[in-house]
Protein backbone atom coordinates (compact mmCIF):
# COMPACT_ATOMS: atom_id res chain seq x y z
CA UNK A 1 0.00 0.00 0.00
CA UNK A 2 1.23 3.46 -0.82
CA UNK A 3 1.66 6.09 1.80
CA UNK A 4 -1.35 8.39 1.84
CA UNK A 5 -0.52 12.05 1.89
CA UNK A 6 -3.57 13.53 3.55
CA UNK A 7 -2.52 17.13 3.36
CA UNK A 8 -2.43 17.56 -0.40
CA UNK A 9 -1.01 20.90 -1.23
CA UNK A 10 0.96 20.15 -4.38
CA UNK A 11 0.48 22.66 -7.14
CA UNK A 12 -0.82 25.40 -4.89
CA UNK A 13 1.34 28.42 -4.27
CA UNK A 14 2.45 28.54 -0.64
CA UNK A 15 3.65 31.60 1.18
CA UNK A 16 4.20 32.87 4.68
CA UNK A 17 1.78 35.25 6.34
CA UNK A 18 1.78 36.87 9.74
CA UNK A 19 -1.49 36.36 11.60
CA UNK A 20 -1.97 37.60 15.15
CA UNK A 21 1.80 37.98 15.45
CA UNK A 22 2.56 34.41 14.31
CA UNK A 23 4.25 33.50 11.08
CA UNK A 24 2.22 30.75 9.36
CA UNK A 25 2.05 29.00 5.97
CA UNK A 26 -0.90 29.88 3.76
CA UNK A 27 -1.99 29.02 0.22
CA UNK A 28 -2.75 31.54 -2.52
CA UNK A 29 -6.22 32.15 -1.11
CA UNK A 30 -5.00 32.67 2.44
CA UNK A 31 -6.02 29.23 3.79
CA UNK A 32 -3.53 27.92 6.36
CA UNK A 33 -1.76 24.80 5.15
CA UNK A 34 -0.09 23.46 8.33
CA UNK A 35 -2.52 21.84 10.76
CA UNK A 36 -0.21 22.30 13.75
CA UNK A 37 0.45 26.00 13.19
CA UNK A 38 -3.17 26.80 14.12
CA UNK A 39 -4.42 27.89 17.54
CA UNK A 40 -7.77 29.21 18.76
CA UNK A 41 -6.18 32.63 19.02
CA UNK A 42 -5.31 32.51 15.35
CA UNK A 43 -8.81 31.22 14.58
CA UNK A 44 -10.28 34.28 16.24
CA UNK A 45 -8.15 36.60 14.12
CA UNK A 46 -8.96 34.68 10.94
CA UNK A 47 -12.66 34.98 11.80
CA UNK A 48 -12.45 38.71 12.29
CA UNK A 49 -10.63 38.99 8.92
CA UNK A 50 -13.88 37.84 7.31
CA UNK A 51 -16.18 39.80 9.60
CA UNK A 52 -17.15 37.03 12.00
CA UNK A 53 -17.16 37.42 15.76
CA UNK A 54 -16.73 34.03 17.38
CA UNK A 55 -19.38 32.77 19.84
CA UNK A 56 -19.71 29.38 21.55
CA UNK A 57 -21.82 28.15 18.63
CA UNK A 58 -19.11 29.18 16.18
CA UNK A 59 -16.44 27.40 18.25
CA UNK A 60 -18.59 24.29 18.44
CA UNK A 61 -18.47 23.99 14.66
CA UNK A 62 -14.78 24.92 14.34
CA UNK A 63 -13.74 22.43 17.05
CA UNK A 64 -15.68 19.68 15.28
CA UNK A 65 -13.88 20.50 12.02
CA UNK A 66 -10.48 20.42 13.73
CA UNK A 67 -11.11 17.07 15.44
CA UNK A 68 -12.67 15.52 12.37
CA UNK A 69 -9.75 16.56 10.18
CA UNK A 70 -7.34 14.96 12.63
CA UNK A 71 -9.04 11.57 12.26
CA UNK A 72 -10.20 11.73 8.61
CA UNK A 73 -7.46 13.73 6.90
CA UNK A 74 -9.92 15.77 4.83
CA UNK A 75 -11.96 18.86 5.62
CA UNK A 76 -15.53 17.91 6.58
CA UNK A 77 -18.28 18.84 4.13
CA UNK A 78 -21.40 20.70 5.29
CA UNK A 79 -23.25 17.38 5.09
CA UNK A 80 -20.75 15.83 7.47
CA UNK A 81 -20.80 18.74 9.92
CA UNK A 82 -24.58 18.29 10.04
CA UNK A 83 -24.77 14.46 10.06
CA UNK A 84 -21.78 13.66 12.24
CA UNK A 85 -21.19 16.95 14.02
CA UNK A 86 -24.90 17.36 14.77
CA UNK A 87 -25.12 21.03 13.77
CA UNK A 88 -28.11 21.80 11.48
CA UNK A 89 -27.12 23.16 8.06
CA UNK A 90 -29.47 26.09 8.56
CA UNK A 91 -27.55 27.14 11.66
CA UNK A 92 -24.24 26.89 9.79
CA UNK A 93 -25.59 29.37 7.24
CA UNK A 94 -26.56 31.72 10.08
CA UNK A 95 -23.19 31.43 11.79
CA UNK A 96 -21.07 31.65 8.63
CA UNK A 97 -23.26 33.50 6.12
CA UNK A 98 -23.26 32.76 2.38
CA UNK A 99 -20.32 30.32 2.20
CA UNK A 100 -20.22 28.30 5.43
CA UNK A 101 -18.01 25.44 4.15
CA UNK A 102 -15.33 27.79 2.88
CA UNK A 103 -15.52 30.17 5.86
CA UNK A 104 -15.36 27.38 8.45
CA UNK A 105 -12.30 25.84 6.76
CA UNK A 106 -10.63 29.25 6.63
CA UNK A 107 -11.20 29.92 10.33
CA UNK A 108 -10.25 26.37 11.34
CA UNK A 109 -6.95 26.60 9.47
CA UNK A 110 -7.83 23.66 7.22
CA UNK A 111 -7.62 23.17 3.45
CA UNK A 112 -10.56 24.54 1.49
CA UNK A 113 -13.09 21.71 1.09
CA UNK A 114 -12.64 19.97 -2.25
CA UNK A 115 -15.14 21.37 -4.72
CA UNK A 116 -14.78 18.47 -7.12
CA UNK A 117 -14.50 19.40 -10.76
Amino acid at each position, binding site marked *: MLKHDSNEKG*GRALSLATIAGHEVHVDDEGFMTEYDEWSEDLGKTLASNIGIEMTDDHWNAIRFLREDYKSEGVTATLRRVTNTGGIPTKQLFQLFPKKPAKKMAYIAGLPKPV*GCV
Partner: protein
Amino acid sequence: MKKLLVLGAGTAGTMIVNKLRPRLGDEWSITIVDQEPEHHYQPGYLFVPFGTYQPSQIVKPKKKFIPKGVDLVMGSLTRLDADQNVVELADGTVLEYDYLVIATGATPRPEETEGMKGDQWQENVFDFYTLEGSSALADKLRDWSGGRLVVHISELPIKCPVAPLEFAFLADSYFRDRGNREAVEITYVTPLDAAFTKPVAAKRLGTMLEDRGITLEPDFYIESVDNETREIVSYDERRIPFDLLVTVPVNMGADFLVGTGLANDLNYVSVDHETCLSKKKDNIFAVGDAADLPTSKAGSVAHFAIEIFTENFLQHVEGQEMTHRFDGHANCFVESGGGKGMLIDFNYETQPLPGKYPIPGLGPFKLLEETELNHLGKLMFKWVYWNALLPGRDLPLPALMSMAGKEDVEA
Protein backbone atom coordinates in the same frame (compact mmCIF):
# COMPACT_ATOMS: atom_id res chain seq x y z
CA MET B 1 -8.83 -21.08 -6.88
CA LYS B 2 -8.56 -17.36 -6.08
CA LYS B 3 -11.74 -15.34 -6.27
CA LEU B 4 -12.09 -11.83 -7.64
CA LEU B 5 -15.51 -10.32 -7.09
CA VAL B 6 -16.48 -7.13 -8.92
CA LEU B 7 -19.57 -5.29 -7.71
CA GLY B 8 -21.30 -3.34 -10.47
CA ALA B 9 -21.26 -3.97 -14.23
CA GLY B 10 -21.34 -0.32 -15.27
CA THR B 11 -18.56 1.51 -17.10
CA ALA B 12 -15.82 0.80 -14.54
CA GLY B 13 -16.76 -2.78 -13.59
CA THR B 14 -17.19 -3.87 -17.21
CA MET B 15 -13.84 -2.39 -18.26
CA ILE B 16 -12.12 -4.05 -15.30
CA VAL B 17 -13.30 -7.58 -16.03
CA ASN B 18 -12.40 -7.13 -19.70
CA LYS B 19 -8.92 -5.91 -18.79
CA LEU B 20 -8.25 -8.46 -16.06
CA ARG B 21 -9.69 -11.67 -17.51
CA PRO B 22 -6.90 -12.14 -20.07
CA ARG B 23 -4.25 -11.08 -17.54
CA LEU B 24 -5.29 -13.30 -14.62
CA GLY B 25 -4.52 -16.99 -15.07
CA ASP B 26 -6.81 -20.03 -14.77
CA GLU B 27 -6.28 -20.10 -11.03
CA TRP B 28 -8.55 -17.05 -10.78
CA SER B 29 -12.34 -17.02 -10.96
CA ILE B 30 -13.97 -13.67 -11.76
CA THR B 31 -17.57 -12.87 -10.82
CA ILE B 32 -19.37 -9.62 -11.53
CA VAL B 33 -22.66 -8.66 -9.86
CA ASP B 34 -25.29 -6.20 -11.04
CA GLN B 35 -29.00 -5.66 -10.48
CA GLU B 36 -29.91 -4.10 -13.85
CA PRO B 37 -29.84 -6.10 -17.10
CA GLU B 38 -29.32 -2.99 -19.27
CA HIS B 39 -26.17 -0.97 -19.75
CA HIS B 40 -26.92 2.71 -20.35
CA TYR B 41 -24.57 5.02 -22.21
CA GLN B 42 -24.97 7.71 -19.57
CA PRO B 43 -23.43 10.62 -21.54
CA GLY B 44 -26.38 10.10 -23.90
CA TYR B 45 -28.93 11.14 -21.25
CA LEU B 46 -28.06 14.79 -21.97
CA PHE B 47 -29.30 14.52 -25.55
CA VAL B 48 -32.58 12.70 -24.87
CA PRO B 49 -34.58 15.75 -23.63
CA PHE B 50 -33.80 17.59 -26.88
CA GLY B 51 -34.78 14.65 -29.09
CA THR B 52 -31.22 14.20 -30.44
CA TYR B 53 -31.14 10.62 -29.13
CA GLN B 54 -34.02 8.22 -28.62
CA PRO B 55 -33.74 6.10 -25.45
CA SER B 56 -33.24 2.94 -27.56
CA GLN B 57 -30.03 4.42 -29.00
CA ILE B 58 -28.23 4.48 -25.66
CA VAL B 59 -29.21 1.12 -24.15
CA LYS B 60 -27.67 -2.32 -24.71
CA PRO B 61 -27.77 -5.56 -22.73
CA LYS B 62 -25.04 -5.76 -20.07
CA LYS B 63 -24.20 -9.36 -20.73
CA LYS B 64 -23.09 -8.49 -24.27
CA PHE B 65 -20.03 -6.77 -22.72
CA ILE B 66 -19.06 -9.43 -20.19
CA PRO B 67 -16.30 -11.65 -21.59
CA LYS B 68 -16.11 -15.45 -21.51
CA GLY B 69 -14.69 -16.76 -18.28
CA VAL B 70 -16.47 -14.15 -16.16
CA ASP B 71 -19.66 -15.07 -14.27
CA LEU B 72 -22.36 -12.42 -14.38
CA VAL B 73 -24.66 -12.71 -11.35
CA MET B 74 -27.87 -10.68 -11.36
CA GLY B 75 -28.98 -9.49 -7.96
CA SER B 76 -29.27 -6.54 -5.64
CA LEU B 77 -26.52 -6.09 -3.04
CA THR B 78 -27.73 -5.95 0.53
CA ARG B 79 -24.69 -6.57 2.71
CA LEU B 80 -20.90 -6.47 2.63
CA ASP B 81 -18.92 -7.96 5.50
CA ALA B 82 -15.39 -6.73 4.88
CA ASP B 83 -14.00 -8.72 7.83
CA GLN B 84 -15.43 -12.03 6.64
CA ASN B 85 -14.84 -11.27 2.91
CA VAL B 86 -18.45 -11.97 1.93
CA VAL B 87 -21.21 -10.16 0.09
CA GLU B 88 -24.89 -10.98 0.34
CA LEU B 89 -27.62 -10.43 -2.25
CA ALA B 90 -31.32 -9.72 -1.70
CA ASP B 91 -32.27 -13.29 -2.67
CA GLY B 92 -29.98 -14.67 0.05
CA THR B 93 -27.07 -15.63 -2.22
CA VAL B 94 -23.74 -15.32 -0.43
CA LEU B 95 -20.63 -14.62 -2.50
CA GLU B 96 -17.14 -15.03 -1.05
CA TYR B 97 -14.06 -13.27 -2.35
CA ASP B 98 -10.33 -13.00 -1.92
CA TYR B 99 -10.25 -9.60 -3.64
CA LEU B 100 -13.16 -7.23 -4.05
CA VAL B 101 -13.58 -4.35 -6.48
CA ILE B 102 -16.43 -1.96 -5.67
CA ALA B 103 -17.70 -0.30 -8.86
CA THR B 104 -21.30 0.38 -7.90
CA GLY B 105 -21.22 3.99 -9.04
CA ALA B 106 -23.36 6.90 -7.88
CA THR B 107 -27.08 7.53 -8.31
CA PRO B 108 -29.29 10.62 -8.10
CA ARG B 109 -31.35 10.82 -4.90
CA PRO B 110 -34.16 13.37 -5.30
CA GLU B 111 -35.71 12.11 -2.03
CA GLU B 112 -32.72 13.58 -0.13
CA THR B 113 -34.10 17.10 -0.69
CA GLU B 114 -37.37 18.04 0.97
CA GLY B 115 -40.16 18.51 -1.56
CA MET B 116 -38.13 17.57 -4.61
CA LYS B 117 -40.12 14.42 -5.21
CA GLY B 118 -43.40 16.20 -4.39
CA ASP B 119 -46.51 16.96 -6.48
CA GLN B 120 -44.45 18.77 -9.07
CA TRP B 121 -42.07 15.85 -9.72
CA GLN B 122 -42.16 15.01 -13.43
CA GLU B 123 -44.87 17.65 -13.85
CA ASN B 124 -42.66 20.73 -13.61
CA VAL B 125 -39.66 19.30 -11.74
CA PHE B 126 -37.35 16.94 -13.68
CA ASP B 127 -33.95 15.37 -13.55
CA PHE B 128 -32.05 14.16 -16.61
CA TYR B 129 -29.57 11.80 -14.90
CA THR B 130 -31.80 8.78 -15.43
CA LEU B 131 -33.27 7.45 -18.64
CA GLU B 132 -36.73 7.75 -17.10
CA GLY B 133 -36.11 11.40 -16.14
CA SER B 134 -34.55 12.47 -19.43
CA SER B 135 -37.35 10.74 -21.41
CA ALA B 136 -40.06 12.43 -19.33
CA LEU B 137 -38.30 15.76 -19.82
CA ALA B 138 -38.24 15.21 -23.60
CA ASP B 139 -42.05 14.89 -23.54
CA LYS B 140 -42.33 18.01 -21.40
CA LEU B 141 -40.04 20.17 -23.55
CA ARG B 142 -41.81 19.19 -26.77
CA ASP B 143 -45.01 20.98 -25.66
CA TRP B 144 -43.58 23.63 -23.36
CA SER B 145 -44.52 27.13 -24.45
CA GLY B 146 -41.93 28.92 -22.30
CA GLY B 147 -41.49 30.62 -18.95
CA ARG B 148 -38.83 30.46 -16.25
CA LEU B 149 -36.46 27.53 -16.78
CA VAL B 150 -34.20 26.90 -13.79
CA VAL B 151 -31.24 24.56 -14.28
CA HIS B 152 -30.01 23.54 -10.85
CA ILE B 153 -27.31 21.53 -9.04
CA SER B 154 -28.21 20.35 -5.50
CA GLU B 155 -24.86 19.40 -4.01
CA LEU B 156 -21.40 18.33 -5.15
CA PRO B 157 -19.93 15.96 -6.12
CA ILE B 158 -22.18 14.91 -8.99
CA LYS B 159 -21.60 12.69 -11.98
CA CYS B 160 -20.31 14.61 -14.98
CA PRO B 161 -20.21 18.07 -13.37
CA VAL B 162 -20.26 19.82 -16.74
CA ALA B 163 -23.56 18.19 -17.79
CA PRO B 164 -25.83 20.81 -16.16
CA LEU B 165 -23.91 23.56 -17.98
CA GLU B 166 -24.23 21.61 -21.22
CA PHE B 167 -27.95 21.27 -20.51
CA ALA B 168 -28.26 25.06 -20.15
CA PHE B 169 -26.31 25.67 -23.39
CA LEU B 170 -28.34 23.08 -25.31
CA ALA B 171 -31.61 24.47 -23.93
CA ASP B 172 -30.64 27.94 -25.16
CA SER B 173 -29.87 26.49 -28.59
CA TYR B 174 -33.05 24.35 -28.62
CA PHE B 175 -35.36 27.31 -27.93
CA ARG B 176 -33.50 29.47 -30.47
CA ASP B 177 -34.04 26.80 -33.12
CA ARG B 178 -37.71 26.66 -32.21
CA GLY B 179 -37.94 30.44 -32.49
CA ASN B 180 -39.17 31.02 -28.92
CA ARG B 181 -35.95 31.77 -27.03
CA GLU B 182 -37.34 35.18 -25.98
CA ALA B 183 -40.23 33.39 -24.23
CA VAL B 184 -37.80 31.48 -22.00
CA GLU B 185 -35.85 32.94 -19.10
CA ILE B 186 -32.96 30.62 -18.20
CA THR B 187 -31.30 30.71 -14.77
CA TYR B 188 -28.35 28.53 -13.78
CA VAL B 189 -28.27 27.82 -10.03
CA THR B 190 -25.24 26.23 -8.38
CA PRO B 191 -23.81 25.71 -4.88
CA LEU B 192 -20.40 26.70 -6.32
CA ASP B 193 -19.24 30.31 -6.23
CA ALA B 194 -18.95 30.41 -10.05
CA ALA B 195 -20.06 28.53 -13.16
CA PHE B 196 -17.42 25.87 -12.49
CA THR B 197 -14.85 25.03 -9.84
CA LYS B 198 -11.53 25.78 -11.46
CA PRO B 199 -10.73 29.45 -12.26
CA VAL B 200 -9.73 29.39 -15.96
CA ALA B 201 -12.62 27.13 -17.03
CA ALA B 202 -15.03 28.91 -14.64
CA LYS B 203 -14.27 32.25 -16.29
CA ARG B 204 -14.66 30.85 -19.80
CA LEU B 205 -17.88 28.99 -18.97
CA GLY B 206 -19.23 31.99 -17.04
CA THR B 207 -18.73 34.15 -20.12
CA MET B 208 -20.50 31.54 -22.23
CA LEU B 209 -23.53 31.72 -19.92
CA GLU B 210 -23.52 35.52 -20.17
CA ASP B 211 -23.23 35.46 -23.95
CA ARG B 212 -26.36 33.32 -24.08
CA GLY B 213 -28.35 35.52 -21.72
CA ILE B 214 -28.36 32.86 -18.98
CA THR B 215 -28.41 34.28 -15.44
CA LEU B 216 -25.94 32.71 -12.98
CA GLU B 217 -27.06 32.26 -9.32
CA PRO B 218 -24.00 31.04 -7.39
CA ASP B 219 -23.64 29.94 -3.73
CA PHE B 220 -27.14 28.45 -3.64
CA TYR B 221 -27.37 25.48 -1.28
CA ILE B 222 -30.86 24.01 -1.58
CA GLU B 223 -32.96 23.25 1.50
CA SER B 224 -36.27 22.43 -0.18
CA VAL B 225 -38.53 22.66 -3.20
CA ASP B 226 -41.73 24.60 -2.46
CA ASN B 227 -44.35 22.80 -4.55
CA GLU B 228 -47.06 25.38 -3.73
CA THR B 229 -45.24 28.47 -4.91
CA ARG B 230 -42.95 26.60 -7.34
CA GLU B 231 -39.74 27.95 -5.89
CA ILE B 232 -36.48 26.43 -4.80
CA VAL B 233 -35.47 27.59 -1.32
CA SER B 234 -31.91 27.77 0.00
CA TYR B 235 -30.67 27.32 3.59
CA ASP B 236 -30.11 31.06 3.78
CA GLU B 237 -33.71 31.62 2.67
CA ARG B 238 -33.21 32.78 -0.86
CA ARG B 239 -36.09 31.79 -3.14
CA ILE B 240 -35.86 31.26 -6.89
CA PRO B 241 -39.16 30.84 -8.74
CA PHE B 242 -39.49 28.40 -11.63
CA ASP B 243 -42.03 27.25 -14.20
CA LEU B 244 -39.79 24.37 -15.16
CA LEU B 245 -37.07 23.08 -12.82
CA VAL B 246 -34.37 20.83 -14.26
CA THR B 247 -32.39 19.74 -11.23
CA VAL B 248 -29.44 17.49 -10.56
CA PRO B 249 -30.41 15.81 -7.29
CA VAL B 250 -27.89 14.90 -4.59
CA ASN B 251 -25.75 12.01 -5.91
CA MET B 252 -24.80 9.17 -3.57
CA GLY B 253 -22.94 5.87 -3.65
CA ALA B 254 -24.70 2.53 -3.10
CA ASP B 255 -26.64 1.93 0.14
CA PHE B 256 -25.10 -1.47 0.99
CA LEU B 257 -21.93 0.51 1.87
CA VAL B 258 -23.65 2.21 4.82
CA GLY B 259 -22.28 0.81 8.07
CA THR B 260 -19.36 -1.04 6.48
CA GLY B 261 -16.90 1.57 7.73
CA LEU B 262 -15.46 1.77 4.21
CA ALA B 263 -17.35 4.80 2.91
CA ASN B 264 -17.94 8.49 3.68
CA ASP B 265 -21.18 10.44 4.35
CA LEU B 266 -22.26 10.15 0.72
CA ASN B 267 -21.45 6.41 0.59
CA TYR B 268 -18.32 6.90 -1.49
CA VAL B 269 -15.56 4.43 -0.63
CA SER B 270 -12.49 6.07 0.92
CA VAL B 271 -9.53 5.08 -1.22
CA ASP B 272 -5.94 6.02 -1.79
CA HIS B 273 -6.20 8.59 -4.59
CA GLU B 274 -3.28 7.16 -6.55
CA THR B 275 -4.09 3.44 -6.39
CA CYS B 276 -7.84 3.20 -5.61
CA LEU B 277 -7.03 0.76 -2.77
CA SER B 278 -9.40 1.06 0.20
CA LYS B 279 -7.91 2.99 3.10
CA LYS B 280 -9.40 0.39 5.45
CA LYS B 281 -8.94 -3.00 3.75
CA ASP B 282 -5.96 -4.30 1.85
CA ASN B 283 -8.04 -6.62 -0.39
CA ILE B 284 -10.67 -4.08 -1.45
CA PHE B 285 -10.44 -1.54 -4.26
CA ALA B 286 -13.06 0.97 -5.38
CA VAL B 287 -13.00 2.32 -8.91
CA GLY B 288 -15.09 4.77 -10.91
CA ASP B 289 -17.84 6.91 -9.38
CA ALA B 290 -18.04 4.65 -6.29
CA ALA B 291 -14.67 5.94 -5.04
CA ASP B 292 -14.04 9.21 -3.20
CA LEU B 293 -11.40 10.45 -5.67
CA PRO B 294 -11.22 14.26 -5.62
CA THR B 295 -11.83 14.62 -9.34
CA SER B 296 -14.82 14.39 -11.69
CA LYS B 297 -17.17 11.47 -11.42
CA ALA B 298 -16.96 10.59 -15.09
CA GLY B 299 -16.38 7.70 -17.45
CA SER B 300 -13.10 9.21 -18.61
CA VAL B 301 -11.76 9.18 -15.05
CA ALA B 302 -12.83 5.54 -14.69
CA HIS B 303 -11.11 4.76 -17.98
CA PHE B 304 -7.78 6.40 -17.12
CA ALA B 305 -7.86 5.13 -13.52
CA ILE B 306 -8.45 1.56 -14.70
CA GLU B 307 -5.37 1.62 -16.93
CA ILE B 308 -3.38 2.33 -13.76
CA PHE B 309 -5.49 0.05 -11.54
CA THR B 310 -5.00 -2.99 -13.79
CA GLU B 311 -1.22 -2.88 -13.53
CA ASN B 312 -1.32 -2.16 -9.80
CA PHE B 313 -3.82 -4.94 -9.10
CA LEU B 314 -1.59 -7.53 -10.79
CA GLN B 315 1.34 -6.40 -8.64
CA HIS B 316 -0.71 -6.20 -5.46
CA VAL B 317 -2.09 -9.77 -5.64
CA GLU B 318 1.48 -11.01 -6.08
CA GLY B 319 2.47 -9.22 -2.89
CA GLN B 320 4.54 -6.67 -4.78
CA GLU B 321 4.55 -2.94 -4.21
CA MET B 322 2.15 -1.04 -6.51
CA THR B 323 4.32 1.18 -8.69
CA HIS B 324 1.73 3.04 -10.79
CA ARG B 325 0.16 6.30 -9.63
CA PHE B 326 -3.14 7.71 -10.88
CA ASP B 327 -3.04 11.51 -11.29
CA GLY B 328 -6.80 12.21 -11.46
CA HIS B 329 -6.71 12.58 -15.24
CA ALA B 330 -10.07 13.41 -16.82
CA ASN B 331 -11.23 14.83 -20.08
CA CYS B 332 -14.73 15.76 -21.16
CA PHE B 333 -16.37 17.11 -24.24
CA VAL B 334 -18.64 19.99 -23.28
CA GLU B 335 -21.56 20.57 -25.64
CA SER B 336 -22.10 24.29 -26.09
CA GLY B 337 -25.08 24.29 -28.47
CA GLY B 338 -25.43 25.29 -32.11
CA GLY B 339 -23.50 22.20 -33.27
CA LYS B 340 -20.36 23.12 -31.34
CA GLY B 341 -18.55 21.78 -28.35
CA MET B 342 -15.49 22.29 -26.16
CA LEU B 343 -13.01 19.85 -24.75
CA ILE B 344 -11.42 20.04 -21.31
CA ASP B 345 -8.47 17.98 -20.05
CA PHE B 346 -7.22 18.11 -16.47
CA ASN B 347 -6.11 16.20 -13.34
CA TYR B 348 -5.90 16.55 -9.54
CA GLU B 349 -3.33 19.32 -9.78
CA THR B 350 -3.80 20.96 -13.18
CA GLN B 351 -7.00 22.80 -13.98
CA PRO B 352 -8.52 22.74 -17.48
CA LEU B 353 -6.36 24.99 -19.71
CA PRO B 354 -6.54 26.05 -23.35
CA GLY B 355 -4.45 24.25 -25.98
CA LYS B 356 -4.67 21.26 -28.34
CA TYR B 357 -5.41 17.56 -27.65
CA PRO B 358 -4.31 14.80 -27.87
CA ILE B 359 -1.36 15.78 -30.10
CA PRO B 360 0.40 18.96 -28.87
CA GLY B 361 0.14 21.79 -31.41
CA LEU B 362 -1.99 19.73 -33.80
CA GLY B 363 -5.01 18.53 -31.88
CA PRO B 364 -7.24 17.93 -33.78
CA PHE B 365 -9.33 18.87 -30.73
CA LYS B 366 -9.06 22.36 -29.27
CA LEU B 367 -9.15 22.67 -25.50
CA LEU B 368 -11.48 25.22 -23.84
CA GLU B 369 -12.62 26.52 -27.22
CA GLU B 370 -15.92 25.98 -29.04
CA THR B 371 -15.49 24.10 -32.31
CA GLU B 372 -17.64 21.92 -34.56
CA LEU B 373 -14.98 19.21 -34.45
CA ASN B 374 -15.26 18.96 -30.66
CA HIS B 375 -19.01 18.45 -31.06
CA LEU B 376 -18.41 15.71 -33.63
CA GLY B 377 -15.87 14.17 -31.26
CA LYS B 378 -18.54 14.00 -28.59
CA LEU B 379 -21.01 12.29 -30.95
CA MET B 380 -18.34 9.85 -32.21
CA PHE B 381 -17.44 8.96 -28.68
CA LYS B 382 -20.63 6.87 -28.33
CA TRP B 383 -19.21 4.45 -30.91
CA VAL B 384 -15.84 4.42 -29.15
CA TYR B 385 -17.57 3.71 -25.84
CA TRP B 386 -19.50 0.66 -27.01
CA ASN B 387 -16.83 -0.73 -29.34
CA ALA B 388 -13.50 0.05 -27.71
CA LEU B 389 -13.80 1.38 -24.19
CA LEU B 390 -16.17 -1.14 -22.56
CA PRO B 391 -14.53 -4.18 -24.20
CA GLY B 392 -11.26 -2.98 -22.65
CA ARG B 393 -9.38 -2.28 -25.89
CA ASP B 394 -6.44 0.09 -25.60
CA LEU B 395 -7.22 3.60 -26.82
CA PRO B 396 -4.37 5.72 -28.19
CA LEU B 397 -4.64 8.13 -25.27
CA PRO B 398 -2.14 8.24 -22.41
CA ALA B 399 -3.63 7.47 -18.98
CA LEU B 400 -1.71 10.27 -17.27
CA MET B 401 -2.32 13.91 -18.13
CA SER B 402 0.31 15.78 -20.12
CA MET B 403 1.12 19.50 -20.04
CA ALA B 404 2.36 19.28 -23.65
CA GLY B 405 -0.04 21.20 -25.88
CA LYS B 406 -1.46 23.25 -23.01
CA GLU B 407 -1.04 26.99 -22.46
CA ASP B 408 -0.45 28.00 -18.86
CA VAL B 409 -2.72 31.04 -18.63
CA GLU B 410 -3.99 33.10 -15.72
CA ALA B 411 -7.72 33.20 -14.97
